[in-house]
């Protein structure tokens, strides 16, 4: 008999707000976080960047969360994770001094890790030689270090790991944390995803792969999932972290329970480096596995927070995958892509979107897919166009689909009998 698992705390650093309430208010208001690039000058390179827009985190200050001396030793993706983790712990009213720290674990994924750090030190290596590469270079860049630093700074000594599965990293991490709690290997898990790759090298790579929108003159309308005029994703950044705990532990400490985590599924496409499998068959099987794990009928799902990247193939195939998994019910449930507002947070996407699931269940409201103007015959579901909607949300599902053909799905449910 496995433990029941509940969500008790949420923390967000995002392109539309650096705390949970700002993020959620802006999401319901339909605000876009996209704008022209400011992190680097796209005109300072030998040839122009085809994409010159991003959904950047604005005015992030690490100092309320991290000592100045330690900030220097952390890539920004780690700083985002630590800030969001500390906010999630506070939101959960989890008193780490009273917890059995051996029972508190961390599972935070990142798709890429410390890209800023890699680029800066590669330049130093070539210009000034190996002796000038920082001794903090490796511990700043490795993708597991968000989990490492969160444990160091919070004292959490339980199970600790990280998933690195591109854009599915956050969802895999949350799913694995869920399993650890179900199995009784920890009482509390601090989990989610983090990413900070608004850098020249990662932009150059994604541009060459023709993955990002080139709607440079109209950034706020560039991320338009499921719309016929979509032309690629808009890169976002940030961190979404949740506190999950066993129901027993949450009840024992009188925690405020936001939602119950009930299902997790994952599959591989076994198809292509970057393109999704035809008809989204890998994503379809991932959703079916998660439904089975949750012991739910497809007809019980009210809301799907789609991967919905705004690329041609993803949105078309994810729509087919939803139809494959849900049959006629696909046309009755609501599907939205909050990436229309946040941009695509890559390895952090699953973290921030798990927060959307929990909040949609708690507040009984579904955020919109903004920038939805021109219907695409290939995308014919109810995408909650342009305006958030009050709705009964008892069961909500989130997909994350990553390069490499990694598919992951989680399901949350309103807490009913306890």
């Amino acid at each position, binding site marked *: 008999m496995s433990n029941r698992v509940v969500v008790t705390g949420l923390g967000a650093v995002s392109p539309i707000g650096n705390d949970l309430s700002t993020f959620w208010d802006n999401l319901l208001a339909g605000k876009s976080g996209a704008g022209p690039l400011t992190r680097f000058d796209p005109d300072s390179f030998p040839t122009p960047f085809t994409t010159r827009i991003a959904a950047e985190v604005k005015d992030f200050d690490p100092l309320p969360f991290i*000592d*100045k*001396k330690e900030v*220097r*030793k952390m890539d920004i993706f780690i700083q985002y994770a630590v800030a969001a983790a500390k906010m999630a712990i506070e939101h959960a009213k989890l008193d780490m001094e009273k917890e059995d720290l051996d029972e508190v674990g961390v599972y935070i994924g990142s798709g890429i890790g410390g890209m800023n750090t890699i680029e800066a030190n590669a330049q130093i290596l070539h210009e000034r030689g190996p*002796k*000038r590469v*920082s*001794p*903090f270079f490796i*511990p700043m860049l490795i993708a597991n270090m968000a989990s490492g630093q969160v444990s160091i700074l919070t004292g959490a000594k339980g199970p600790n790991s990280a998933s690195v599965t591109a854009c599915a990293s956050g969802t895999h991490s949350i799913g694995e944390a869920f399993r650890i709690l179900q199995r009784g290997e920890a009482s509390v898990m601090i989990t989610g995803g983090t990413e900070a790759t608004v850098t020249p090298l990662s932009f150059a790579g994604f541009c060459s792969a023709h993955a990002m929108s080139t709607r440079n003159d109209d950034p706020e309308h560039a991320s338009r999932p499921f719309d016929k005029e979509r032309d690629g994703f808009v890169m976002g950044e940030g961190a979404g972290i949740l506190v999950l705990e066993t129901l027993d532990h949450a009840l024992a400490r009188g925690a405020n329970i936001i939602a119950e985590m009930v299902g997790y599924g994952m599959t591989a496409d076994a198809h292509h480096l970057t393109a999704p499998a035809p008809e989204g068959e890998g994503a379809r099987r991932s959703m079916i596995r998660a439904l089975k794990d949750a012991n739910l009928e497809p007809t019980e799902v009210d809301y799907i927070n789609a991967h919905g990247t705004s690329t041609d193939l993803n949105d078309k195939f994810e729509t087919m995958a939803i139809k494959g998994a849900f049959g006629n019910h696909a046309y009755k449930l609501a599907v939205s892509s909050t990436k229309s507002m946040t941009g695509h947070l890559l390895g952090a996407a699953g973290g921030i979107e798990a927060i959307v699931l929990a909040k949609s269940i708690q507040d009984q409201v579904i955020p919109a897919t903004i920038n939805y103007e021109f219907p695409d015959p290939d995308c014919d579901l109810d995408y909650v166009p342009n305006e958030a909607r009050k709705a009964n949300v008892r069961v909500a599902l989130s997909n994350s689909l990553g390069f490499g053909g990694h598919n992951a799905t989680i399901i949350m449910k309103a807490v009913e009998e306890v």
Partner: protein
Amino acid sequence: MADTLERVTQIIVERLDVEADEVTLEASIKEDLGADSLDVVDLIMELEDEFNLTIEEEDAEKINTVGDIVNYISAKVS
């Protein structure tokens, strides 16, 4: 010498996030100022840049206190 101490103090304050009055000639970089082995490597790189010199590894290993740094730099640049 006074000038060297001032510049060294400034770097240590910045890198190790300590107060300037803690940075005395007698202060041990690891024990009193809280540096770990990676901090020491980082600090030495910064000193090399600031004073435009190379601190050999065997010399770096002998550095314990702020005074050791100041003496080493004074000897090298004079």
